[in-house]
Each structure stands twice: as structure tokens, then as C-alpha cells.
């Protein structure tokens, strides 16, 4: 029975939230280690998730983020370490008894079942009666905006619709934890953007603790309460998106998240570095070597048009309110500088400019 209209879907969602675990689930990954042959997929990963929090694991492929998710789901086991859900160790609990909703990267709907039956599957496993599970499944389809597609089979749905059904199916069982394994990566850009917002809105409304794995930094930064950047099985940094962007803990995080310029500099004594003809303080640890690269975001550089500048404009990339200007500095160093679009009109390719760095503390990396 899918008589719900879009108008009361908010009320429906609230009802489901209250009936369920109410977002009161905390998740603790403790020192997870997992090796496949000689490769260490996970190397002592620890994350603590507050109830109702959405944590994104971000990293290049092969960094272990998917392995971590699969261990939480119960599809893999850790060599060492443990997963605690509300303080209870899950090691001996099989995947089917963990009460976790999962949305997969590839389309995972059961091809032999309609959208409605797919969503109702988990409820059927929980021995809910036919009428009850049909009604609930209908409500959930309504919640993801697919009430009209309830009778359709997966092959009749678009990729985005299939992932929305998969999301409804995962949420139908009122999972203690929602696990999202790159659910948007197979979709095209526009659908991805819509679904991203829909997932976040639903997750916040239901208060379901969510672990989200992605290699797309924009996705992670825009959706998550906190983002954990992973590298070679280890957590480099876990922080709120703005903190991660403004205040990256390591050079890897700095370069992985957002766009980062590398400008050669010379390390001076007393925690300063000389770069672009000036001297600026160093933030965090300094590399052992004296020859370093200074890491600066495109918006962290200032640029003036000037006859005897230190660089020449090569490209101009209009991004809306800002324009990203490519500049080739003396010594063959290419950097990108953001300028308000209103000021960028004068910066045609070939223009001589002088680029400088405000006296803010900067992050350093060993020179490449």
C-alpha cells in the first residue's frame, strides 16, 4: 500500500526514526589490523564515532577504507583489533545478525524482486507480517521519492533510482549503523549531487550513525560531520571538513584534500622558511632536509599585476565567483592562484604578475 504522498514523508521519517534505535548507537573501531598476503590493508586503525554522526573515510584506492567498512559489516574479519557497537564486541557476530544497513558501490538490488519487495526483504527476515512490511516498505520508498516505482523491477530503474531503493532497503531494517560503500561512484555527476544531499538529509533526520567510504573528497567534505583521511591502512587525520581543509595535520592530507601549490623554499633557523622573496613562519613539524616545498592553497597566495613580477599568467579558469589563474613562476614553478572574478579580467595569459605569500604560518613537505 503506497498511498503516502510526498507531503507527509517527513512525518513518516520521524515515525520510523522513533520506532528504531533512535540514533543512539556509538561505534568504536579499535586498533584494527588486516593483512592480505604481504600487503597490510589496515594497520592499527582506530576511530570513535558518536551516536548519529556521519563519518567519511577518504583516501586513495588501496588505502584500506573499504576493508575497514567490510570489517564493520562483518564480511571480513580483522587479524587484530575489534569493532564495538554500543560497547559490545562484534567479532563473533555474523553479518546477518549485526543490524547494519549497507549500500554497495555496484547495484545490489535483487533482480528477481520489485523495488517494494527489495525494500521489504529485510523486514521479511525479521518476520514482520505481509501487510506490515508492505506498508513500511511503501513508506520508505516514499521517503526516497520512489513511491511510483514500487512495482518496477531493478532493470527498469535508472542507476540513481536503484541506489535510492538500495538506500531505502538498508534503512528499512532500522539499522544500528548505516554503511555506505562508495554508493555514488557509479552515477553521473548530476544524480550524484542530488543523491548526496538526499542521503545526508535522511541520515540527519533519522539520526543513524553512518560510516561512509569514498575516494571523492568533495563528497566526503560536503556530507560528513567528520572526515578521516586514510593512507596505507592508517588514519592520517580525522577532523571536521573545514578543519581538515584549513588545518591539515600532514603534507599528505594537505595535498589530498583540495588543491595545493608546492613552492620551493629554504628552511631557515628558528622555525621560519624563506619563499617567494619573503620569510614566513613554519607550522607543525619541519622536514630534516633544508630544501623544502611550501604548501599553499590557491586562495592563500596574493597576486598583483606588475611589470617586473616573478611570474607570467598561463591559464585562466573561470569557476563562478572566483577565477583560478595559472601562473608560471621564475624557476619553472607552476602555481594556481584564486582571484575574485571581478579582478581577473586584467589577467590575460602572458600578463606579467608578482605572486607573494602573506606572513601566515605555512605547512612544509620534503622537496620532490
Amino acid at each position, binding site marked *: 500500500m503506497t498511498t503516502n504522498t510526498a507531503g507527509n514523508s517527513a512525518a513518516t521519517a520521524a515515525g520510523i526514526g522513533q520506532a528504531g534505535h533512535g540514533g543512539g548507537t556509538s561505534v568504536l573501531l579499535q586498533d584494527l589490523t588486516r593483512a592480505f598476503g604481504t600487503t597490510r590493508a589496515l594497520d592499527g586503525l582506530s576511530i570513535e564515532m558518536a551516536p548519529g554522526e556521519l563519518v567519511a573515510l577518504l583516501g586513495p584506492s588501496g588505502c584500506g577504507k573499504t576493508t575497514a567498512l567490510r570489517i564493520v*559489516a*562483518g*564480511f571480513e574479519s580483522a587479524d587484530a583489533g575489534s569493532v564495538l557497537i554500543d560497547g559490545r564486541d562484534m567479532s563473533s557476530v*555474523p*553479518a*546477518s*545478525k*549485526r*543490524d*547494519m*544497513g*549497507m549500500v*554497495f558501490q*555496484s*547495484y*545490489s*538490488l*535483487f*533482480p*528477481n524482486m520489485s523495488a517494494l519487495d527489495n525494500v521489504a*526483504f*529485510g523486514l521479511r*527476515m*525479521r518476520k514482520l507480517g505481509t501487510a506490515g512490511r508492505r506498508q513500511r516498505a511503501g513508506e520508505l520508498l516514499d521517503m526516497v521519492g520512489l513511491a511510483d516505482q514500487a512495482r518496477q*523491477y*531493478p*532493470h*527498469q530503474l535508472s542507476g540513481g533510482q536503484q541506489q535510492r531503493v*538500495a538506500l531505502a*532497503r*538498508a534503512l528499512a*531494517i532500522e539499522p544500528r549503523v548505516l*554503511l555506505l560503500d562508495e554508493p555514488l561512484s557509479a552515477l553521473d555527476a548530476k544524480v550524484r549531487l542530488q543523491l548526496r544531499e538526499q542521503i545526508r538529509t535522511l541520515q540527519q533526520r533519522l539520526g543513524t550513525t553512518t560510516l561512509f567510504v569514498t575516494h571523492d573528497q568533495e563528497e566526503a567534505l560536503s556530507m560528513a560531520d567528520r572526515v578521516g583521511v586514510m593512507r596505507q591502512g592508517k588514519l592520517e587525520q580525522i577532523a571536521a571538513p573545514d578543519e581538515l581543509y584549513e588545518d591539515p595535520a600532514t603534507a599528505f592530507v594537505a595535498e589530498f584534500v583540495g588543491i595545493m601549490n608546492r613552492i620551493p623554499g629554504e628552511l631557515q633557523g628558528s622555525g621560519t622558511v624563506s619563499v617567494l622573496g619573503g620569510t614566513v613562519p613554519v607550522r607543525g613539524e619541519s622536514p630534516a632536509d633544508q630544501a623544502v616545498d611550501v604548501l599553499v592553497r590557491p586562495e592563500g597566495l596574493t597576486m598583483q599585476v606588475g611589470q617586473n613580477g616573478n611570474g607570467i599568467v598561463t591559464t585562466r579558469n573561470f569557476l563562478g565567483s572566483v577565477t583560478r589563474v595559472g601562473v608560471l613562476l621564475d624557476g619553472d614553478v607552476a602555481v594556481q592562484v584564486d582571484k575574485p572574478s571581478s579582478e581577473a579580467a586584467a589577467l590575460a595569459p602572458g600578463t606579467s604578475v608578482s605572486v607573494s605569500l602573506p606572513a601566515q604560518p605555512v605547512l612544509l613537505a620534503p622537496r620532490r
Partner: protein
Amino acid sequence: MAALRGSGGIGSPGIGGSRGSSPWASTVWRWVILVLAGVYFLIPLIAALRFAGISSFGSVISQSGFTSSLALSVRLAVITTIITIALMLPTTVYVHLRLPKLRRLLEGITILPIVIPPVVLIVGVLQIAPGFLKSTEYLLALVYVILAMPFAYRAIDAGLRALDLKTITEAASSLGAGWITTLWRVVLPNLRTALLSATVLTVALVLGEFTIASLDLYQTFPVWIYVNSQTSGQVSVAASLLALFVTWLFLMAITVIGTRQSRKTGGGSVTLFTVARQETRGD
């Protein structure tokens, strides 16, 4: 029916035009080839039909040995199919899920019965089979299980490959389904077409097998047709035409069911055709 649909697809303008000749000419060529092939296949059947005469179809059933040999063949077909599917389905699913590296090996092993001549197979089996098996018709069923393996494996394998087995079994288990429930409610329903083609191919193989049955001294239906042709040629030709017709009906039935199924769930009915082609090559 299938031929008409096929030629319609081939005659589409895009393909004909790309070759530089007019679509009309290529359509004509396709029809010429189709008609030639049709004549090649149909003339022996028509000749057989004329030789047998309509009246001999009536006397097939009353011929001595007809009922018992047909019953034996059907019994063997049922036993063989049950054993084959009971063995091959779990094996193939397990290999797909847990031992994907062994798929190549399994494929190689299952091709062996086609490579080894039936005569060699049955002579070998009769040499080493224990006495209690040699005295029953079940030995024949066991040998047929081996013969049916290539077809059953390929049908099931094709069905599994059309599924993202790992993901859907994991999805089922995250939703609370145990192993048996997952197999029963998620895997099996999506393999219906594949299992149906495995069944039909196995049945067709058992109903048509001659060499092994005759060397094992059992009068199955094909053996009966051969023996009977010595005494009453027309009746045995009529019987083999009937057998052909029944097998053809089977194949059509599975095509129709498979297509209906795939229209609903988006799966492929192609599986039957790829496997069916291998079957004719094997014979």
C-alpha cells in the same frame, strides 16, 4: 519464429549500409542463406516423414519394447538431472563466491567429457566399476552425469556470471538472511533460466544417448529405435521423428519461459542459445 526475429535484426539499415552495399542486397543475401540452410535441415526430415508414412506413427506405441525403453530413458533422465544439478549448483556457486581462481580449472575439467570419446569412457567405467553398480541401470545414470557436466556447468556458470553474486549475497546477509535463505530466496530465483536450460540440455542428452547405453547392454529409447529399425524401419523412423519433435518442444518451452522471465527481471535468455550451440557441437 526465432529465425524471423533474427533476420529482422540483421536486416536493420545500419549494418547493411556500413558495408558499402545497399541494405536491400544484403537482406536478399541473408534470405538466400536462410533458405539454403532451411532446405539443408528440412529435406532429411521431410524424406523421413515420407518414408515413415502417417500410419506408422500410430503403431509406434503398440510396438513391443516401446513403453519399457521409453520408461527407462525417462527414468534415467530424471535421475541424471537430479544428481547433476545437486552436484553442479552448489559447486559452481561456491567456486564463484569463494574460489574464483579455480573457475578456469573447473571449466577445463568440465570440458573433458566432450574430449573423451564415449566409447573410451564406458569401456573404462565397465573395467573399474564395482559389481553391484554394473548390474543396475544406475551406473548408466552416473556416466550420464559425467556427460552432462559440460552443459550443466556452462548453463549455471552463465547464469551466475549474469549476476553480481558476491554483492547480492552480501546484501542479503546484511539484511539478516542466513545462508540457506540467501540461496533459496535470492540466488535460486535468479538462476531459474539457467537451471531450466541445464535441465533441458541434460534431459535431451540422456534421451538421445546411444553409444554408452548400447555398450552397457541396456535398451534405452535410442537403442530400441536402432534395434527396431532392423525389423520395422518405418516405425523406428517415426519414433525418432517423434523424439525429435518432443525435444524441440522442450527447447521451445524453455525459450518462451526464459524470455518471459527475463522480460520481468532483465536477465538473459541468451544462456540457452550459447549452451545449445555447444551441445550440437558436442554431439
